[in-house]
């Protein structure tokens, strides 16, 4: 906009105000104020100090920024933060309880499902949503569910193994994927 350049013409005033919303982040009620153009990814990393969610392609192609929004895996780089008012967001930071890893985190560690680690937070959140819905998914279903999470290290086999193993663990422990 160069409305202010012309002489004698009143400058167009665009009010650039922050917006304020309330949402649940990893179970905690949170109130936050931010510039309205921010995506959920930017909100989490820059305003809520939760850098666990990774910033990959920014265009919805890689899945590194996957979080759960009202329990559904979505790409936080393509969600307007302002649209998260009143909703529940779960990120990788909410998985472990104190020093106790979530079964999925433990299985990925034990089975080599995480190498460089950049896809891991997104992969974990996708897998968590899958196991909450389907406690005993087939390998085919697991592969389908993680189709939107690109990993360039593992070749996926260890990730699928880990999700299967965590599913067994969670079923045996009688607990759901929390």
């Amino acid at each position, binding site marked *: 906009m160069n409305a202010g350049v012309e002489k004698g013409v009143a400058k167009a005033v665009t009010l650039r105000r922050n917006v304020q919303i309330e949402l649940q982040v990893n179970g905690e009620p949170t109130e936050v104020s931010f510039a309205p153009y921010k995506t959920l990814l930017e909100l989490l990393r820059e305003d809520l100090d939760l850098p666990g969610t990774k910033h990959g392609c*920014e265009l919805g192609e890689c899945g590194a920024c996957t979080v759960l929004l009202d329990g559904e895996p979505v*790409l936080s780089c393509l969600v307007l933060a302002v649209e998260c008012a009143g909703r529940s967001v779960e990120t990788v930071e909410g998985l472990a309880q104190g020093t106790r890893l979530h079964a999925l985190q433990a299985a990925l560690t034990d089975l080599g499902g995480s190498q460089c680690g950049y896809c891991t937070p997104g992969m974990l959140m996708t897998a968590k949503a899958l196991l909450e819905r389907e406690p005993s998914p087939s390998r085919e279903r697991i592969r389908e569910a993680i189709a*939107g999470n690109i990993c360039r290290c593992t070749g996926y086999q260890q990730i699928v193994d880990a999700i299967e193993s965590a599913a067994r663990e969670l079923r045996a422990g009688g607990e759901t994927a929390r």
Partner: protein
Amino acid sequence: MMRLPWFEYRAPRSVAEAARILAGEGPGAMLVAGGTDLLPNMKRRHQSPSTLVALRGVDELKAVANGAGLQLGAGLTLTEVVDTPAVRERYTGLWQAAAQVATPHLRNMGTLGGNVCLDTRCTYYNQSYEWRKAIDFCLKKDGETCWVATASKRCVAVSSTDTAPALIALDAKARLASVGGTREIAIADLYRNDGIDFLARKPEELLSAILLPEANGWRSCYWKLRRRGSFDFPVLGVAAAAKLAADGTVEAARIALGAVASRPFLVPKAGEALVGRKLDDAAIGEVAGAVASRAKPMDNADMNLYWRKEVVSAFTTYALRELRGDDMRAERLRTARQALAA
């Protein structure tokens, strides 16, 4: 890091309110539902709307109504479309198309209306701002030359929607709402063969629903070509629908193509040529050739141009064989890595 540009955010609660905002804001406003198509484009400055009219709070856009046919709200996510039993049972072509759009994550976000209104794509367009600036931009956005066909006065960016060819084969209608009221048009008439001005939707209109006619014995399917079976926009979409008599004679048929022009389109002659015949290999072979001759892909998408044209005939054959009742799971797995059995 690519940031979204500033915009004013409006969140209407009804179609009428959304239409009023659109009318009031003029062409500077854009609609956003799932955001999976628009937000990447805004980050790369293909579009910089001054106002975003967000539709996710409009409950009427989520309505599913059975009756004579099926009405699907444009705001249903693709996951919701795939999970609608009536779609899976009676409109297999739409079900297969929606199930093959992008990835589960993107289907959780992207909507039916968004896929129907998807921006056209091109290797010279879907690039970062700096990349496009380095080639002095292109005809579709900020430039004067179409780098795909430098003599072309028309932008040849490719229509990349999966659901539209399926909806055309199923003879669906689109409902458009504006402050002046609503109108319903054949879904094929929603499109123009122009990579820039590809929708016949007026700027003050919003797509509110898709109306499918009664299934009434019609069967349908959708075949998609793409590099990765788990992801990717189509480089070819073949949708076919047919009504067969008890002895297998074709009473009516419709075949539509996607991703081989700036719009998805019906090949009327192909459907007509099947009427009164059985779907035997000879009839299928003839029609597949006729369909392939209508495909005019340009060198602006993934994969080799000539091969993409050649493969139209094979994909049409797969589609018609599936309608005939052949077990196509092996071909599905081979070409798409998904069985997609309805």
